[in-house]
């Protein structure tokens, strides 16, 4: 995808403790984004992001000094307009759950190609959510079963269930479809797909479902 097709060059901040990876991302995306800074630990990241206010922060989940979560907690209360896209080498469920619940707008693995990474950055910059197939599968799994009886008290049913359409969208994403392909398959606009995904993300962040954390701990093997 050419940068001109996306209009503006988003202002990108990079948080990762591997210098090699940072260099790689800069080399791949340098022409299409405006790099406003980088950091290799939690404290430096919080300070610099709050100072420079980038559009998108590319955030490694495994960071010395508290992990990616700590960065989210240090920035979002002050500057909720900053969008975070989380990355990690593996997509272990506990990583996914932690960063999404802490407020990241998307989650991808580092095996992603340069083009796809750029696309994800643009999507997050525009306020949309980025779902990898694995994340979609995780959400389907976590929302598949009704709540276990003991924990239903105080749950908001609106937040704790997916609509049939949301399920369909997630199922297609889990099968490896892009948003565009999902839209074509369900005969809806790409914008509608985005709004479904965003709504799922909101449910994921606000839900108090016991299964969300249980799933993650149960399935460490994935």
């Amino acid at each position, binding site marked *: 995808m050419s940068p001109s097709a996306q209009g503006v060059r988003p202002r990108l901040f990079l948080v990762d403790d591997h210098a090699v990876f940072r260099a790689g991302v800069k080399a791949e995306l340098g022409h299409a984004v405006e790099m406003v800074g980088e950091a290799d630990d939690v404290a430096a990241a919080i300070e610099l992001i709050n100072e420079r206010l980038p559009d998108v922060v590319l955030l490694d989940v495994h960071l010395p000094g508290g992990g990616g979560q700590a960065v989210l907690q240090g920035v979002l209360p002050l500057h909720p307009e900053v969008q975070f896209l989380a990355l990690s080498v593996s997509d272990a469920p506990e990583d996914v759950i932690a960063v999404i619940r802490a407020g990241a707008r998307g989650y991808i693995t580092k*095996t992603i190609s340069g083009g796809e990474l750029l696309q994800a950055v643009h999507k997050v910059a525009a306020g949309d959510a980025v779902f990898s*197939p*694995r994340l*979609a*599968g995780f959400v*389907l*799994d976590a929302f*598949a079963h009704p709540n276990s009886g003991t924990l239903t008290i105080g749950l908001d049913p609106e937040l704790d269930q997916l609509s049939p359409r949301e399920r369909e969208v997630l*199922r297609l994403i*889990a*099968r*490896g*479809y892009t948003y565009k392909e999902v839209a074509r398959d369900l005969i809806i606009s790409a914008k509608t797909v985005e709004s479904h995904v965003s709504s799922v993300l909101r449910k994921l962040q606000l839900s108090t479902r016991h299964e969300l954390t249980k799933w993650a701990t149960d399935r460490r093997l*994935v």
Partner: protein
Amino acid sequence: MVPAAPARDHGGISESTESSARPSPGPAAEPPRGSRRTGRGYRDDWHQVRWQAREWHHDHERSRSRRHQEHVHRILRLRGMRRSTEARVLAGVCGGVSEATGIDVTLVRIGAAVLGVAFGVPLLVYVVAWLIIPIDGDDGNIFSRAVTDRRGIRIFIASIPIMVMLQILVSVLHIGLIGIIGWPLFGSAGLAILIWRNAGPTEKAWIDHDLIPMLRADEEGASRWSLILRVFVGALLGAAAVTVLVFGHTTAAAIRPLGGALLVVAAFVVLFGPWWLRLVRDLMSERQARALAEERAQMAAHVHDSVLQTLALIQRSPNDPQQVVRLARAQERELRAWLFEGKAPGSIGEEATMLGQGIELLQRHVEAGHRITVHVVMVGDCPLTDGLRAELDAAKEATVNAAKWSGAAQVSLYAEVEADAVKVFVRDRGQGFDPDSVPGDRQGIAQSIHARMARYGGSVVIRTSPGNGAEVELSMPRP
């Protein structure tokens, strides 16, 4: 360099020896050419002529059965009617009637059952409907296939004397209800033979797996004791029946018809006995042949998945000796395990007990043997059954096909455990293919995917077109 790549058929290695030795059917079969009347040429020509004669014969047979089918349709004006696959208890006839007429299916069913038990004839009508109404999703009816099933017809004819005999016995002994519905009942049983022998593959799988076990629930896991008990109870009941028959009436009045009936039986046995015996023997040998053919098909699927796949890979990497050695060694190990330890190659399900484990193994196998990344997403998990193992093998085959032919660097595999089925989607963004252009006799899709799934009542949907990648959807019902 690599030898000219074979046409992408998504089905694996092209079986050149077999297909070239056999003239293709239909108009492509060329008439004998030239007049070299010596040596090989002469023999080849002769072969051709013989083949063509056979083709003509087949064409004739085909058009005859087609005409026959049209005839049946026209008479009964049932062209649009289909037996339902969803609303079905037995053959889906009631469901089909309800769909065609708009009457509630439960009403139709109650009506059919009541009339069937009371008069018997509706029973025969039901079975005839089973024969001549095609099932939903199939164009041909069973009858059009049954008319070419010579042996089936012979069995049907052979069963007529048995029916006559039974009917005579029943009417002689004045067994009330059975006397009324006897004829239709026996007729239906005879026709059921034709249905069983000629049903379509899906329906046949359903009959074999769901209906037949119901009729002989004792065959598997039956202990000697239950057999003894059954024989004992049966004998007791029989004795009681005779006692009631004999002493219920005045003695002489009962014995006379009973004796007559026995004479009838004896006459029939003497007349038709040898014929029946021969038919039974024929049937048994046919059954053995079928079992052998099935075993052969399974073996072919295994060989295709392992040896042929490896050979294809070796042909594609002739400039990478290390890769060739690695592949050959792995294949050798697998083949040894198969021949000497009985572990079937290409089968991943046996090492795993849960679906999740199986999928993980599949991913590891495919990524180890092919240069492709398999992205796995799983929702839910469940213990593996035979059907699910077959689904895993089919999914592996689909993944390997994507690795070999699609040209894509990665393939997505999504597995979801639903309440009544396990679905697996294998998707690549490669070059895609035209499913209609894949010859039906290629092992990959036909044997390793379709047949494997059908054997356990599963289904396959393939979505693809040239240039648009491919997605294979596998669905296996859960018990």
